[in-house]
């Protein structure tokens, strides 16, 4: 099989991995080599589904021993199998990088033989790139659950980011749909990676030449809609991963039906809106100071489809509003629908010079269409603040009707990060 045919099989098999981030790592390139990384990350193209392409996303092999129900590459599925040699992946990466197609390599793999054998072959690709070819670009390695800690450590020394996929939001679902994978085999390397990253940071404070361990941190991914967990369970899981394991990102991937296994739900289309709402809620956890318990509860465990989670929270908490734009602190501003991280910072910078007027709000970039129900500007309100919550909800629906007509227009937040 030639490289082109392999590339088609093995990039097609990798496309369900959501992560494309190339940010969070800053490395000067070696003088005689190729590549550096910039801390903001760079997108190089956008594919036909509108997602950014930053990394050459590949499986080393799709020849899998495991039989996970939700996966195209499960052993019982009759798809064409292929495996790259290390040299082929190295050459592809360099050929693409030199033409500025990509920011680096994202390498994952099906489990060939044992987890250790697979992980060893993947680490060897990264090692060849870094040591033989002096490659300074971005490398993201997937960790195969069950591989030895020695190999995980090696992976962290060559890669900018490493990630272990959590796959499904609970042990019960894992048991049912991916019987060869076990929660502990996933969480143990995550915890170990978290410790290694932390100790490498401490070491580098006292010794600048100490080796860097996964400088762009670790991330994970889970499939949404293939198992029965509700949004509240999922968000609490993410919250735990961010707080306890120090993860940089949790990716959510709407389940795309790839098989008619009777353990899986029958879906007319991938649950894209649900995925979108989860990303919005995830942003609230990481950048807006919300907790999972504020966004959802056991009584209302699903994210609202009509409203984004922040607006839904605001509608449930009329006592918090209106917020006075010229006095409120950063954390309070962030809770106003229509005000994001950027506009909250701008408001604080701009009011040093003069009080902000309603005109100024628009110029700063606040989405007044949404914010006007929740704010006052130097005491002046835009809408009657004493309106009962149910009425406000209705008003909001009418005001937003143009946006609501297009629920399929989904923009993943932070796709650039």
């Amino acid at each position, binding site marked *: 099989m030639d*490289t*082109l045919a392999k*590339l*088609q099989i093995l*990039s*097609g098999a*990798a*496309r*369900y991995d959501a992560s494309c981030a190339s940010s969070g790592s800053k490395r*000067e*390139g*070696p*003088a*005689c*080599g*190729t590549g*550096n990384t910039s801390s*903001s990350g*760079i*997108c*190089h*193209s*956008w*594919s*036909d*589904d*509108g*997602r*950014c*392409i*930053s990394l*050459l*996303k590949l499986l080393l092999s799709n020849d899998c021993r495991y039989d996970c129900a939700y996966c195209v590459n499960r052993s019982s599925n009759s798809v064409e199998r292929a495996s790259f040699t290390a040299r082929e992946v190295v050459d*592809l990466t360099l*050929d*693409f990088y*030199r*033409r*500025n*197609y990509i*920011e680096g390599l994202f390498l994952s793999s099906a489990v060939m033989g044992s987890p250790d054998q697979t992980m060893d072959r993947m680490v060897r690709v990264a090692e060849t790139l870094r040591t033989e070819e*002096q490659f300074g670009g971005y490398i993201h390695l997937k960790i195969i659950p069950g591989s030895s800690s020695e190999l995980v450590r090696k992976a962290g020394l060559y890669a900018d980011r490493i990630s272990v996929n959590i796959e499904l939001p609970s042990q019960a679902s894992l048991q049912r749909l991916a019987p060869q994978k076990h929660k502990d085999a996933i969480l143990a390397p995550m915890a170990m990676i978290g410790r290694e990253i932390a100790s490498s940071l401490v070491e580098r404070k006292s010794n600048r030449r100490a080796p860097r361990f996964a400088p762009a941190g670790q991330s994970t991914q889970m499939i949404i809609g293939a198992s029965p967990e509700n949004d509240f369970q999922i968000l609490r899981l993410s919250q735990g991963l961010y707080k306890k394991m120090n993860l940089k990102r949790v990716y959510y991937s709407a389940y*795309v039906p790839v098989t008619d296994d009777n353990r899986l739900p029958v879906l007319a*289309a*991938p649950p*894209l809106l649900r995925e979108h709402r989860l990303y919005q809620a995830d942003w609230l956890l990481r950048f807006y100071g919300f907790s999972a318990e504020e966004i959802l509860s056991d009584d209302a465990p699903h994210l609202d489809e009509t409203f984004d989670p922040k607006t839904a929270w605001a509608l449930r908490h009329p006592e918090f509003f209106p917020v006075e734009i010229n006095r409120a602190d950063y954390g309070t501003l962030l809770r106003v629908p229509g005000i994001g991280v950027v506009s909250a910072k*701008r408001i604080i*910078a*701009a009011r040093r*010079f*003069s009080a*902000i*007027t309603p005109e*100024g709000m628009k*110029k*700063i970039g606040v989405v007044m269409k949404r914010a006007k129900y929740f704010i006052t500007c130097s005491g002046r309100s835009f809408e009657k603040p004493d309106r009962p919550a149910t009425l406000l909800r209705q008003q909001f629906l009418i005001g937003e009707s143009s946006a609501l007509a297009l629920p399929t*227009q*989904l*923009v993943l937040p932070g*796709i650039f990060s």
Partner: protein
Amino acid sequence: MNRYLYDGTADGLFSAIAWILEEEPDPQQVALAERKDTLFEDGFFISTDATQAEDLFFRLRKQAPDAAHTLYSFMLAEKEGTESSLLHYISLAFIHGDKVNGHLTHPAVRDIVSVAKKAGRELHRMKGLLRFEKLRDGAYLAKMEPDHNIIHPLAYHFSRRLRAQHWFLYDVRRRTAARWNQGALQFGTIEQFTAPALSDDEKKVQALWQAFFKTIAIPDRKNPRLQKSNMPMKYWKYLTEKQGE
């Protein structure tokens, strides 16, 4: 309101601004424009002094480095008729330091910051969207037609990235070029451009990239509108993956 004129060069502009900041009690009330060769133009002409211009930039960089950076990005946009805004912005930057960029309700600050942001955004975008082709002699060539004159900072970016390669950037519309070879970066203009021959394996590598670009998209999630909003069609002309579409 006092009105001043300068000769239309960048040095002229900044030496005029330096002069006004020195001589005028309230620069916010002053207008500055390029001298056109018409008969009755009113305004006092300030002659160009390159050392004054350089000195102004140096002082600004020291007192307000962020503002100096904004100014640099602004100049990439090659926008005409913005001299008064620039003057007002710089005078505010000397008063408030880097905090000036937060003064978004001031019209001059808003003008300068928004244009600078656009230029900066295109620069960042081109760092990703630029495509090199390998030539027969082993060097790499990338052609582009950006809205802003970003070849300098863009070439700098690639000089840190593709250090072991011999490469050229070519701005087709402005006819300017950058060249990196063995640790040296040079700039120049190209009068007559003839497309050089590609290396033998170039088409093969391009076909691999085009195949990757096609297969990496999830068919159930096709979204051409989102693709176009992230990657406007004006950039497709030189994108390897968009050839022949």
